[in-house]
């Protein structure tokens, strides 16, 4: 039985539709990340699952039961908010107690739950402090603790790390992952940060302008992007995109030409406008004499320690190549490169959909 199911779920604010029919299946215990740029409808979708926003159309089920019209408190979910949403006048302990109040547990059970959660999250020392007396990372953990004490069936997270500095973000991200392994509770997690998505998710849901672009494991969305949007959104630095045309079994672009790899035979038609996608790491430096070598001007070199990023110009095209640091060259030099044919992606330029399948 799946923990959460969305069937063609729609959200409208007045006449404006912001979520256009989302379909999604979340299994028991799965860690699912909604990923997409700001404004694409992630928070709205999450808030519909929480019950903080009405569903304008479609069907939303939790634990096999349709909950479109079920009050938030009866959905068995707990939410961790972007700004933590702690009660500012209550101590950490009181915050957790207040979340437990509706469950009407006896005092011993309340204390046990709070102490257990505090131990897991390392909040023991902080129980008598109020939110203003805590750092950002500590508030974040209190917010998680307040959600955990209720032992919900589903955790909802809305950009929980966005208010933390880079170092803390890595640490808390790791803690969230560990916590999920330990508790095994279903998680629906919203972020615009692909690193969070890739590291935490069992399943990534990539959203764009209120539509789901692709659903898959982190590996699937990285290695088999279904659209140019997913291809450029996932991976850092972004995948290079070259607009080309299919001409006589070759991919021809202005000042750039390569044979059509065999695996695309029959999937493209003569004269079709296609977009070649190639990750920076799949662009190699080669000798000038080797077959398929293209001449490229190095415009900028970024040294990153282990590797270096080269901003290249090939004819009218700008490409980024990621090379081992010892292969980097000074800006202004001319080098020769070749694309790893086995690793290129091909998209239909008009629809933006993949041609790899």
């Amino acid at each position, binding site marked *: 039985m799946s923990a959460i199911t969305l069937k063609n779920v729609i959200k409208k604010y007045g006449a404006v539709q912001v979520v256009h029919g989302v379909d999604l299946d979340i299994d028991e215990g799965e860690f699912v990340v909604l990923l997409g740029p700001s404004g694409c409808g992630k928070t709205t979708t999450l808030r519909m699952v*929480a019950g903080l926003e009405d569903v304008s159309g479609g069907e939303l089920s939790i634990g096999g039961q349709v909950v479109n019209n079920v009050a938030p408190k009866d959905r068995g979910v*707990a939410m961790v908010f972007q700004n933590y949403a702690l*009660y500012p006048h209550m101590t950490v302990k009181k915050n957790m107690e207040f979340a437990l*109040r509706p469950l009407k547990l006896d005092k011993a059970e309340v204390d046990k739950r709070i102490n257990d959660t505090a131990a897991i999250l390392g909040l023991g020392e902080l129980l008598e402090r109020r939110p203003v007396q805590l750092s950002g990372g500590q508030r974040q953990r209190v917010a998680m603790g307040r959600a955990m004490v209720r032992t919900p069936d589903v955790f909802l997270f809305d950009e929980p790390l966005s208010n933390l500095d880079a170092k803390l973000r890595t640490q808390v991200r790791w803690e969230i992952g560990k916590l999920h392994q330990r508790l095994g509770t279903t998680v629906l997690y919203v972020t615009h940060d692909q690193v969070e998505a890739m590291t935490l998710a069992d399943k990534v849901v990539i959203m764009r302008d209120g539509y789901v672009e692709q659903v898959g494991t982190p590996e699937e969305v990285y290695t088999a992007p279904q659209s140019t949007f997913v291809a450029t959104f996932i991976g850092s630095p972004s995948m290079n995109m070259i607009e080309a045309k299919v001409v006589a079994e070759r991919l021809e672009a202005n000042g750039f030409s390569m044979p059509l790899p065999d695996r695309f035979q029959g999937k493209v038609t003569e004269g079709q406008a296609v977009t070649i996608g190639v990750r920076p790491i799949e662009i190699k430096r080669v000798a000038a004499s080797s077959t398929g070598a293209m001449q490229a001007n190095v415009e900028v070199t970024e040294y990153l320690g282990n590797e270096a990023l080269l901003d290249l110009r090939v004819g009218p095209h700008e490409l980024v190549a990621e090379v081992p640091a010892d292969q980097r060259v000074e800006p202004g030099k001319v080098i020769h490169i070749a694309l790893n044919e086995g690793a290129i992606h091909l998209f239909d330029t008009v629809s933006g959909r993949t041609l790899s399948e």
Partner: protein
Amino acid sequence: MAYIRKRNKRIFLIFLLPAMLVLFLTTIYPMLYAGYLSFRSYDLAKLFVPRVFVGWSNYGEILGSSEFLHALVTTFKLMAMTLSVQLVLGVGIALIVTQKLPGMPLARTLLMIPMMISPVIVGLVWLFLYFPELGYLNYFLSFLGFDSIPWITSTDWALWAIAIADIWQWTPFVMMGTAAALQSLSPEPYEAAMIDGNSRWDVFTRVTLPQLKPVLVSLMFLRAIDAFKIYDIIFVLTKGGPGDSTEVLSMFIYRQSFTFWRMGVGAAASFVSLVIIVVLITLFFKSLNRDQVS
């Protein structure tokens, strides 16, 4: 630098001078003069009797007089009546007008009108409403089949009549301050409570009220200081009567000074009232500071 700083110091004095002059002429000098008077026997009705120094005897007279104590008690009684109702009504209305419902911004604006009317006018308006026989209130009461109420002519009702007018005028003040505080509260904890399933009552008493408390305490102190000085409405409606049933401190002072022309006694009573107000204001600032510390 030093030169400029010195010059700036002198310029700042020049800018302050007009304000200080006004403050001196309208507040400090009268206050000092009242202080001087409070130690003299000064009877305007006996113009040619010298204004001799009488020590603390004016203070002794008022502190020992049952009339003064009665006025003091009446003042605090009226304060308790108006403040408690204003607090409950003000918070209640604030909770309603801060809901995201159509018409609420307009309602908020309209509800603030009483506060902007001069208290004398408020007194006159309520005089029309309370007027025995001809008043609108009694007209409506008889229309509905009730007996008419001797609003301002009975010792049982007069203080309530005053209180109602004051409540009508100043509940909006409490409402406005509370509404502003309510709107500054972060909405997210309320959503968290909604998901966790906390009851509305729990959310109000344990999330909203504690966060409003500093503002409510401030509003109540401001109202208390004002209520202590209440004068205009009473002057228009009852002039302290019937009998002495609505004689508050300010009416007592007025009567001593301008009815009996006993300036020295009136001044002494003013000083006692000043001391009480200073105590209230000090407590008010103390409570402000305590909020800032926590």
